[in-house]
Each structure stands twice: as structure tokens, then as C-alpha cells.
């Protein structure tokens, strides 16, 4: 059982799914042709359900925002906050939001649950808040086209983000190689890279979901409501990503606890996970970066 657990865990890391779809809005930006239809390999009702719920929630939110504008009542605002939170939770449950990078990072170091929670929240909040900041800046400061600007800003932030991710992966990989070669005392191996910079690197790209909700509210002269909903969507996304990060930490701890009675094996497995996580982060960063050019 123990061996099977470890092998399954390592295989999970190795076969972390990687997609080519790092797309911006295909309607408003020229992109590389990336598609060829392939034979089915599986099917997920989960994905279909997520898409359907998102569509229904977006429609409900649009109706409620209109209702706030026409009735001037505050009652729909509370329901809107709940809808926005739910939208954030579901929106980030599907593919995206840098969860793979976040999980790889968590595997590479030893954060406790509290630091993991801070990390997960920061990834999502940065992603959401950069969307809010983007809309406010472009709409009120520069007063220019949103869709074109979103593509430009997304492109620039993606270059920055993926370069940072790549660099971070290299540092983690280099540190793990140092451990393999020098075998430092355990106290020296407890430190890990600054989670705040990593969270910023992963989440800096503005969330188009937040951008669209905000723009809709602003079009009805409800800028304050747009900001409020953007915040609640971000909190919803933070809830999902933090849950995944915490489960990631629990999974890693569970695997390591299997070998906790064998110090040497424990250290080897831990170092192997860190090395693979470093390689994975570097690979993901590099891969994302290449798709932009």
C-alpha cells in the first residue's frame, strides 16, 4: 500500500495535465492556431456543469445589477454579493487560475496550513484585484478601449508572470539540487521561497471575469457596485484556490507520513518531490512564455 501510494503520488506530479490553451479573448486578439480536433479520451460532467452554472450565475447577476439600477433598492445587492461569491468559487474551480503552478509551488516547500491559506488567498485576490485595478485605470484614467487594452495588459502581465514563474522554478530546482549534492542539516532545509512574490507572479494577470462584471456595472453608472462585486468574486476564487492548496499540503503530508519512520527514505522522497516540483514550475513557466511569442 505504501509503495503504491508513493508511486501514485509521484506519477500524479509527473502527469500533471498541461494545456496549450493560454488564450486571451479570441474575438479581440489575434492568436496562434492551436486547435485540431482529437479522438475522445474521456468526458467530464463536472466541466459541463461548471460552464452551465457560470452562465446561469452571470445572467442572474446581470438581471440583479439592472434591478439595482432601476429600483434604487439595496435588497438585491445582498443577493448579488452571494451570487458573485458563488460565481468566484465556481469560476476558479474549472481549468485555470494558475492552480497547477500554485500546487507545484506548495509541493516544493514546507508551508504549514496557515501559510498555505495565505498563499492560496493571495493568488486569487491578486488575480481578482488586478482586474478591478485594470478597469478603473483604463476606464477612468486613460479613458480608452477596454477590450484592446485588456489584451495588451494581459499580454504584458503574462510575460512578467511567466518569466517570474520560470525563474522561481529554477531557484527551487537549484535549491533541491544543492540538497541532493550537499545534504545539509534539516534546519537548513526548512526555508522556502517568499510565498508573497510567488502569489503575485501567479495572480498578476487581470481576471477577465471580474473585468466584465465591473464593466457591466459601470455601464449602468454603478461603479461602486462593480468594485464590490469584483471583491466578492475574488473572495470566492480565493476560497476555491485555498481549499485546493490546503488539500495539496495534506496530500503531501500524507505521502511523507507513510515514510516518516524511515528517516533516510523520508528525506529522499521529500527531496524528489521538491526537485520534480521545481522542474514542473520551470517547465510550466517556460511553456506558457513560449505560447506568447
Amino acid at each position, binding site marked *: 500500500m505504501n509503495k503504491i501510494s508513493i508511486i501514485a503520488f509521484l506519477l500524479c506530479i509527473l502527469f500533471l495535465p498541461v494545456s496549450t490553451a493560454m488564450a486571451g479573448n479570441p474575438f479581440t486578439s489575434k492568436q496562434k492556431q492551436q486547435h485540431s480536433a482529437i479522438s475522445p479520451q474521456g468526458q467530464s460532467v463536472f466541466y459541463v456543469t461548471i460552464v452551465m452554472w457560470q452562465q446561469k450565475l452571470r445572467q442572474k447577476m446581470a438581471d440583479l445589477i439592472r434591478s439595482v439600477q432601476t429600483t434604487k433598492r439595496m435588497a438585491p445587492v445582498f443577493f448579488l454579493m452571494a451570487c458573485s461569491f458563488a460565481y468566484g468559487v465556481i469560476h476558479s474551480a474549472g481549468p485555470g487560475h494558475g492552480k497547477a503552478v500554485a500546487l507545484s509551488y506548495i509541493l516544493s516547500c514546507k508551508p504549514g496550513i496557515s501559510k498555505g491559506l495565505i498563499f492560496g488567498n493571495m493568488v486569487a485576490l491578486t488575480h481578482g484585484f488586478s482586474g478591478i485595478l485594470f478597469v478603473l485605470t483604463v476606464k477612468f484614467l486613460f479613458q480608452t478601449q477596454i477590450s484592446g487594452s485588456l489584451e495588451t495588459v494581459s499580454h504584458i502581465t503574462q510575460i512578467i508572470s511567466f518569466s517570474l514563474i520560470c525563474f522561481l522554478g529554477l531557484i527551487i530546482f537549484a535549491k533541491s539540487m544543492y540538497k541532493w549534492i550537499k545534504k545539509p542539516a534539516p534546519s537548513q532545509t526548512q526555508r522556502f521561497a517568499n510565498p508573497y512574490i510567488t502569489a503575485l507572479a501567479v495572480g498578476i494577470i487581470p481576471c477577465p471575469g471580474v473585468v466584465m462584471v465591473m464593466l*457591466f456595472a459601470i455601464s449602468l453608472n454603478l461603479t461602486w457596485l462593480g468594485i464590490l462585486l469584483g471583491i466578492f468574486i475574488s473572495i470566492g476564487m480565493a476560497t476555491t484556490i485555498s481549499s485546493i492548496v490546503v488539500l495539496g499540503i495534506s496530500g503531501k503530508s500524507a505521502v511523507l507520513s507513510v515514510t516518516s519512520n524511515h528517516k533516510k527514505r523520508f528525506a529522499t522522497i521529500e527531496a524528489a518531490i521538491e526537485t520534480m516540483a521545481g522542474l514542473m514550475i520551470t517547465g510550466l513557466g517556460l511553456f506558457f512564455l513560449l505560447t506568447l511569442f
Partner: protein
Amino acid sequence: MLKISKTEINRGILKTVLIIFGFLFVMVDIAWSHPHVFIAQNLKIVFDEKGMTGFNVCWEFDDMFSTMICDDHDKNKNKILEDAEVASIRETAFSYIAEFNYFIYVKIDGKPFQVKYVTDFSARLEKGKLIYEFFIPCHVSAVKNLKRINIASYDPTYYSAIYFIEQHPYEINNNGPFEITAQIKEDKSTSIYYDMVHPWALFLEFRIKQ
């Protein structure tokens, strides 16, 4: 009374955590491109005396994407898209998807048909929602044997989710002597969105009346 040892409990917990963890890894992906745009679609298949000439695509976008596009292109803010504004939309909020077959994937008797251009593009606003209409020329002559056409619509980048409207998802404009059957169902021969979903497609069959 059944006794369970501590080791067995630990193994049980470990198994559960591993299953959850494994599931999360399978579900996790790195793309930032999950659906941000929702499109309700209907198709109008057009026939002449020889067979199918093509089909008209009508897309109704969700309120929020509609607002974003109109905010940029409805320059005079009159909620009506004039010719210059439609041209601007076509250039900067439609023509790029030519790279992706205009999100329309056609198979004629199982063989892919590349959508290289569209005609009669128009954009308008209805109750705050942006609507695109365009025609895809696709000539298929009717013969005595059944011709099988499969039309699926999806955005391979996963930025948009396209679905058929519930009522009247398609119309058939049949002016010829043809037997035509059509239905909308999942296209099990194609997988999209990280191989997780089969797209819904219009399956059309037609031949000269026997």
C-alpha cells in the same frame, strides 16, 4: 464488536486523501482561458435547387460581453450599431476568430470542411445583447444517396462557451426536392476542452427525394 486498528484507520485516511489529491491533480489545469463569454446560437440551413448552399449562423452574446464590446464600439452611445461601428466590430471583435474556423467545425460525410471565409456579417443590439449573424458558404449537392453533414460550434481556446438555444435551435430553408432530416446531439467523435467534453452538433442528412 468489530475492532479496527489505528494503522488501518490511518491507511483509510491516507487512501481518502490520496484519492482527493489525485482527483484534484486530474482536474487542475494551468490555462487562464475558461469560459468568459457565453454565446447562444441558432443555425439556418439554406438549400437551393441543387442541394445545400451553406448556413446562416446567429450568435447572441451574454450581457456582460455585449457591454464590453458595445462600450468600445458604439461610439455615439445610442445603443444602435451603425455601419461604421459594425465594420469596426468586424475588424477587431470578429475577424480574429478566422484563425479558428470561425468556431464552426463542419464535417461532410465524415471529412472536415475548412471554413475559410464568411459572408453577410452583421452585428446589432437587441435588448442590450450583442448579436452577430453571418453566412458560411458550404455547397453540397444532393444525390440519391444520403449526404451526412455535421456542424459543431465551439471555441477551442475555451474562452467562449457556445450552446444551441432551446427553442428552434435550427431552421431549414428547403426549396428543393429533397428529403431532409436533422437533429441536435453530442458529437461523440470529437472531444474539446481538455478532452473532457463532446461538443453539441447539428447532424443533417439529405438526399434527392426517391
